[in-house]
């Protein structure tokens, strides 16, 4: 285990959707460079937890500290914090009115006041990395789902975030396209990116995760290294979940 200062500290957070208790006293520390994979049945709160980290969901109690910034402090500039946090969505959410290249350069040009030519250079390098340089001039609708998701990853990376959040990045993809997206994520992990990944891809979790977090009914049930979690889960609910999916 790491002893360095965590880059994300989640302490005793609670979240309600009306009467529904979506997150129950959840606490989680994430060190720089950690790859955390969050598993759990649908409705277990794993996506909600992920979305609280960049405040797409607000919390009702507890604290979340990202890179020294307290998200519950109204004085903190959430937009500045979000620039440190790349997010990849299940449904890609590429800007449909912009070309692939412009999807990547919009935020660096408008938010970091980067020169368009420099932003283009960075964008093309990132598109190279995800294997889509030749698609720079296309519109999102002209790409396959797997290609769109790789562009979405590159778009998030264009802001040079410290942390990447993945919200079921392969769940909306046809099976034959899952591999190309996971490959990009594995590469990113090997480069040392701090990653929090909500997924159903057990192979990815086993290969990449430093820690697997298993959630059920809004609470963290088990947190363990992938070897322990997959081969020797400690909790009954973890065992049941693994039996159902494996």
């Amino acid at each position, binding site marked *: 285990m790491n002893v360095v200062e965590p880059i994300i500290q989640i302490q005793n957070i609670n979240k309600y959707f009306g009467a529904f208790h979506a997150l129950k006293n959840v606490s989680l520390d994430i060190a720089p460079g950690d790859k955390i994979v969050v598993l759990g049945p649908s409705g277990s709160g794993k996506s909600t937890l992920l979305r609280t980290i*960049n405040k797409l969901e607000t919390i009702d109690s507890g604290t979340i500290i990202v890179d020294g910034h307290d998200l519950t402090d109204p004085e903190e500039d959430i937009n500045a914090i979000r*620039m440190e946090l790349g*997010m990849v*969505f299940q*449904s890609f*959410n590429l*800007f*449909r009115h912009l070309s692939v290249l412009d999807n990547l350069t919009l935020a660096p040009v408008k938010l970091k006041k980067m020169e368009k030519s420099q932003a283009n250079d960075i964008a093309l390098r990132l598109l190279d990395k995800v294997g889509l340089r030749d698609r720079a001039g296309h519109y999102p609708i002209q790409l396959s789902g797997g290609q769109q998701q790789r562009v979405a990853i590159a*778009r998030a990376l264009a*802001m040079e975030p410290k942390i990447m959040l993945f919200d079921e990045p392969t769940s909306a993809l046809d099976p034959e396209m899952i591999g190309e997206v996971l490959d990009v994520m594995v590469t990113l992990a090997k480069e040392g990116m701090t990653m929090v990944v909500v997924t159903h891809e057990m192979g990815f979790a086993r290969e990449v995760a430093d820690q697997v977090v298993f959630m059920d009914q809004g609470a963290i049930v088990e947190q363990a290294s992938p070897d322990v979690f997959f081969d020797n889960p400690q909790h009954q609910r973890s065992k049941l979940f693994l039996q159902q999916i494996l």
Partner: protein
Amino acid sequence: MSKDDITKIEVGDGAAIPSPDDKGLVSAWWVALIGTVGMLIALPVLKPDPYLTILKFVPDGIVVTFEVTILAIVFAIIIGLLTGLGRLSSNRFINMIASLYVEVVRGIPLLVQLFYIYFALGRIVRVPDIVAAVIAMAFCYGAYMGEVFRAGISSIDHGQTEASLSLGFDKKQTMAYVVLPQAWRTILPPVGNEFIALLKDTSLVSILAVADILRRGREYAAESFNYFETYTIIALIYLLITLLLSKLISAMEYRLSHYERR
């Protein structure tokens, strides 16, 4: 989220704008256009008195009609954008003001509003008739346009907003860079319909002593007593204008949708 179906919002009582895919409407458009142009040529040729005289007398009004229409639509779009944003605002006060405006305007007939604003304005400040007409039309159509903007903005998938926020854009930047550029696509057809409806409704300003097409026609008819012939020509002129405009708007809509085509 489906990527293929584009949200269409249908508002308005304007002329139907033919989609390039809709063969039935497209051919009806051609029949109407040829018929209108044919009659506008044939009538003055076959019976110069009074048709040719009418045709020479009325065109001054066309310019006025377009002036009122274009000025009113520009202001209506500005008011509409603000109203639409206001109706979607989480600020309850702004939301209330915008909603109240829409409710009030929608509940009063345009003709009554025209009279009201004309005379209410006249009590405060002396403005030319055409200015009063533009203000009244923009005030009324701004409310309808507000609903168009509200619907168009709401139709953009929330994932677009979330993606923008997650990159670090604030709400205003998200609206300006991500949502509105896409909402235009959805908004343009109903805005086009409103434009055509507004052009037709400007005929109402003829009662405010604004010398639009209808007013010019009435002036001529009152002198010559050729009521039937005058209104025939006026109806044909309005029809020709709206037919051409509907085609223009459908062409603009097609151009604006370039990123939706594979």
